[in-house]
């Protein structure tokens, strides 16, 4: 079900955009298959793989038992022998069980075989807190994978980006970690043109231009940042919102150029604050724009606690619009006084 917008471009949900990318690429390339828990006949708990089983048959929509290491390992082997598996980790928290296969096998094979083996695998996993799922179903662990050479890490925020980036992942001959915030699947809608397009990795997107402060945000936090920027604009503060879209490769130049212009940066991510993605982004800005920074770089991430089940407690641990506005104002303290 799609909706036409004023500009004539139809609107899709985040989940619909991902589904469309899978269908189109599976049509184009018969090496691609999806594998994971309930991804087949049921169509995935978040409905991303809906229709694949019916359209492409059980061989290309493989249901598995609850056995993350097993089916991820199976997929790595399949990738090395010529297929392009798309692994779905229903709750990204349980990617811990597949770490060996991803970190020590998938990420290393091309290097350790001297280029003789390649592992074209796409691992889709969920991130994001805020639906009261408890400490083992609410974490955002994408930063771990950006730490490992040999993996590409994608953190899309909009349906348009999600589709374009997933298509790029499915054409990449290397392991790609693709993180989807589970609260965006149904709630986030956006324009997605019907024409064929892909989005290259390593190219940040300026989601909103501004001159007073740079807000770098990942995944769902892009929407919180845009809402904050809207409110700040009412107070005459023009925030620039930048979405890196991929952590590896990282478009460092766009971040640096933006901060050279605005002199202030607030970095927002749903992942844990300490040693998180925001730290690497802040360091990037610090190195590249040192002579232009006019205030300490602000970082917002999840509080260093297991995400609570209680909704009010849970919401207090993750960054939101209000926290972003407060951080922006901290960076602007004293300016123009």
């Amino acid at each position: 079900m799609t909706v036409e917008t004023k500009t004539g471009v139809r609107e899709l949900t985040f989940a619909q955009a991902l589904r469309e990318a899978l269908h189109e690429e599976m049509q184009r390339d018969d090496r691609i298959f999806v594998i994971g828990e309930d991804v087949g006949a049921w169509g995935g708990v978040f409905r991303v793989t809906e229709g694949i089983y019916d359209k492409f048959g059980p061989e290309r929509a493989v249901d598995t038992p609850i056995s993350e290491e097993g089916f991820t390992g199976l997929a790595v082997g399949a990738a090395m022998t010529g297929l392009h598996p798309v692994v779905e980790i229903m709750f990204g928290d349980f990617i811990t069980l597949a770490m060996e296969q991803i970190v020590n096998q998938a990420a290393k094979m091309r290097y350790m075989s001297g280029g003789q083996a390649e592992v074209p695998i796409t691992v889709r996993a969920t991130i994001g807190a805020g639906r009261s799922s408890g400490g083992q179903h609410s974490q955002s662990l994408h930063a771990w994978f950006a730490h490992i050479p040999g993996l590409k890490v994608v953190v899309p925020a909009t349906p348009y980006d999600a589709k374009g980036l997933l298509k790029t992942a499915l054409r990449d001959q290397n392991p790609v970690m693709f993180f989807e915030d589970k609260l965006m699947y149904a709630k986030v809608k956006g324009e997605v043109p019907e024409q064929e397009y892909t989005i290259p990795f390593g190219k940040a997107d300026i989601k909103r231009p501004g001159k007073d402060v740079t807000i770098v945000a990942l995944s769902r936090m892009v929407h919180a940042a845009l809402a904050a920027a809207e409110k700040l604009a009412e107070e005459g503060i023009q925030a620039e919102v930048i979405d890196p879209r991929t952590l590896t490769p990282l478009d460092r130049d766009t971040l640096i150029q933006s901060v050279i212009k605005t002199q202030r940066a607030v970095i927002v991510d749903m992942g844990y604050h300490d040693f998180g993605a925001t730290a690497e982004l802040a360091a990037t800005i610090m190195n590249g724009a040192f002579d232009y920074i006019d205030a300490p770089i602000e970082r917002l991430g999840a509080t260093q606690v297991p995400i609570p089940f209680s909704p009010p407690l849970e919401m207090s641990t993750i960054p939101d619009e209000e926290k972003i506005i407060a951080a922006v104002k901290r960076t602007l303290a004293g300016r123009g006084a």
Partner: protein
Amino acid sequence: MAVEIVMPRMGLTMEEGTILSWHKREGEPVQAGEILLEIETDKVSAEIEAKASGVLGKILVEPGVSVPIGTPIATILEPGETQAATVTVEEAAAQPSQSSPGRSGFQPAAPGATAPGNSKDGGAKDTRPKASPAARRAARERNLELKSIQGHGPGGRILESDVKRAAQEKRQAQPRMTPVAARMAAEMEIDLSKIQGSGPRGLIQKSDLSAAAQESAGTAALSDQSELVTPSRARQIMAERMAQSFSSAPHFYLMVDANANTLVELRQALLPKVESKAGVRLTYTDLLAFFLAAALREHEMVNAAWAGGQIRLNRAVNLGIAVDTEGGLIVPVIHGAERLSLSEVAQRRAGLVETARAGKLGPDDLAAGTFTLSNLGGFRVDTFNAVLNPPQAAILAVGRIHEKVIPVAGQAVIQPIIGLSLTCDHRVIDGATGARFLDRLVELIEEPYTMFA
């Protein structure tokens, strides 16, 4: 254990102090409570007591030298203790962040945390002004010294906007001149601030410099017959404050001659009563102060201050009294004057004047004034206009009581007259507002019984 003596803070606005003299020599025994040294701030001089008993160790700051508050100036050692047991100046200076209030969250690396052994390096870091990297670059590009720039960021950090503002101010302060004039000025070492350019829009030209050069040859001869004197710190501060007040606060003056007949009679009648009650001689200043307090309580806009875009209405009437002392003009404050009886006003005034002339006013005696009374009635001054005492919005200038021929019901009558001039800050007070206040003051002076109405 050695006890460190630091430059004390003698009031909220104090930033640095000057050592006037040490009352003890190095190695001399010291009792807690004994006067150890004397310091001077921008407002007062004060005697500082030893806070511990022992032996005065090394004196770190000599008389005549100014240092910021909190700077170690000496140590008191336990008998038999040696100087080595205590911290050195450099190390102490390298750890200012321990005593300064920390900011929550982000904490930049504390100076001294890096190289405690390298005391010289640590000390040098401490004197570096706090500035953002962007501000440092901007200052570097514009050839500006960070030390001369006021920071408005958190904790006084200099931001790029501060540097840009300073650069603009510098540009505006710099006279415009032709390249030839610039070269001539540099060669002849002429102070450009004294030259009025004769070119378009004040452009300084070659001819201006030639003229200035000839003139300076003339003043060189004058310098033999004159002397340059460095004024006291108090006078320097006052000079700055007055110049700033006069150029930033839009002044206007309301002047009136009040009939002083009743005022003279009132003073005569009350003299013995106040003397027996408060033990001081009642002055016209006391009566005026008393009336002012009453009038100010009724006109809050006059008991006010311009506070950077807002108006501060003061609840209490803290009346400053301008006092002429050997060290220059000083303005001690009678706090809560609106709650005092006439005898109490007289008593406070007398006490403050005496303390002021002895040079022993404390910072609190000078703080928080809301209105100032300046009475030159003791001199042959009929009336004068005063400069506002910032941030106060008004000041009353009072001349002597003198006889004047004035028309009363068609007859020329000789009456004692007192000349009043109210200076107002037009940002706070409008003409009519000031006039209503002055009108009431005159009414109180001429018909004091209206107080009971």
